[in-house]
């Protein structure tokens, strides 16, 4: 529980992923498109990966990855992010963290 929350609050936009997960990759592409640099943690590469996976599921993600945290708070998985984006709610949420180079 701790590691996930700790990592999640360390950076603005955090995506928990797995190295082979292409859907996670798609999410990071979307954030990139919206001018946000996301920090990706590949839990399958982490020694505590198993625990982290359990935590994420317990937090309410139906699939452990991708799990997206914005500003330390859990947004959800791909479904939630997509719904939010189409309803126009994602960009306002990301606004403080947008870094246009």
């Amino acid at each position, binding site marked *: 529980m701790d590691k996930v929350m700790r990592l999640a609050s360390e950076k603005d936009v955090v995506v928990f992923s797995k190295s*082979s*997960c*292409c*859907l996670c*990759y*798609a*999410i990071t*592409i*979307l954030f990139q*498109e*919206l001018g946000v640099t996301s920090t990706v943690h590949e839990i399958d590469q982490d020694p505590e990966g198993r625990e982290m996976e359990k935590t994420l599921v317990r937090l309410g993600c139906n*699939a452990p990855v991708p799990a997206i945290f914005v500003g330390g708070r859990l947004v959800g998985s*791909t*479904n939630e992010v*997509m*719904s939010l*984006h*189409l*309803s*126009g709610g*994602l960009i306002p949420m990301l606004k403080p963290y947008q870094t246009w180079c």
Partner: protein
Amino acid sequence: MPFSNLPLLVYIYQIWEEEGIEAIETWNVGEQQELEGDEESKLSIALDINSTCAKVAFFIISKSMNSPTPQFVPSRLGIYEPIHQIGIWGENFKSNGNPNTSTSVIVEVDNKLENESETTSHEMLTASNTYEQEASKPIDKIQRRLAQNREAARKSRLRKKAYVQQLENSRLKLIQLEQELQRARQQGLYMGGVLEGSHIGFSGTVNSGIAAFEMEYGRWVDVQHRQICELRTTLNAHISDIELRILVESGIGHYFELFRMKSTVAKADVFYVISGVWKTSAERFFSWIGGFRPSELLKVLVPQLDPLTEQQILEVCNLKQSCQQAEDALSQGMEKLQETVSSTVAGGPVDEVSYIPQVATAMEKLEALVSFVNQADHLRQETLQQMSRILTTRQAARGLLALGEYFHRLRALSTLWATRPPEPSLP
């Protein structure tokens, strides 16, 4: 030229209507020959009215000589009549598997057979009488008759040729269709059974999942069509917004039903959904991750929704942009998946016989495809939901009508394309 020396293949074709007996017998006089070109001369020689040389033989062929009087009318076997009959027989040509054999008839009345039945002898006499009568007519009339016969025979041959050509074309078309069907079946029934014995057991579930989907989808399209018609008539009439809302809700719900169906069959066989085999060819042309592209959908809808308020225009614009961004992200994710699977399958030494580790690993990666299909459908669902929120009831109804009609027309396009006429082959 003596009549009996002519090498001609003789067919006598009879239908005994009463008993339904068909008897065909060929009487080969000399060698078999094609009757092209020379036919006219041969026949005219045969019909040489030199009455001292000519014989008219009458063959009646039947399975049992005790059968009742044939319905066969002897005048049809008079000397000149059979030539007319060539035309008719050409039309009714029953394939004995040998379309090139001749179909002309020479009639010879053999006096021997006169004794075999009373009625037939009477018929034969009539025939011979007819023959003798004809012999005494002026020559030019006979010549004219001959010319007519030749013409009829020629026309008959042309008709037969055209018919055979048509049959050949149909046969080719049939083979083409069968091949297409085979290909479509193979695409749709992907088994995934590369590894020996491992997944064959699941093939039953896969097939039944697909079969169930296909049936349901057929029904879905029918219901869709009914809904479109209802929307059309309702929009022209003047019903309350509340009633219209019900139609809109059920219309949107119907699409959601499709996404549910697709999710189920994707678990059974994701390739089936992605390949779009279940859709018509024109729909497949526009396919993106197993269905329509949400941003394209918006492009189809928006022109039909005029007039939109400023606020609506802005919201639709934002929605379209969000759709495109989400689509791009998913598309790039798909590309990454392709790369991953490709490199996995190609990996490892190729001079080793066993590829099982590579293929097994690739199988795991392919599981992700199901998530992509689900995400794509989720995007479609969200787009429909957002549009329903942005638009008024009446606008939403028009939007659903436009969308349904669009897919209906795509299906019609597919059908039209599939049944387009082949290039003409006959001059």
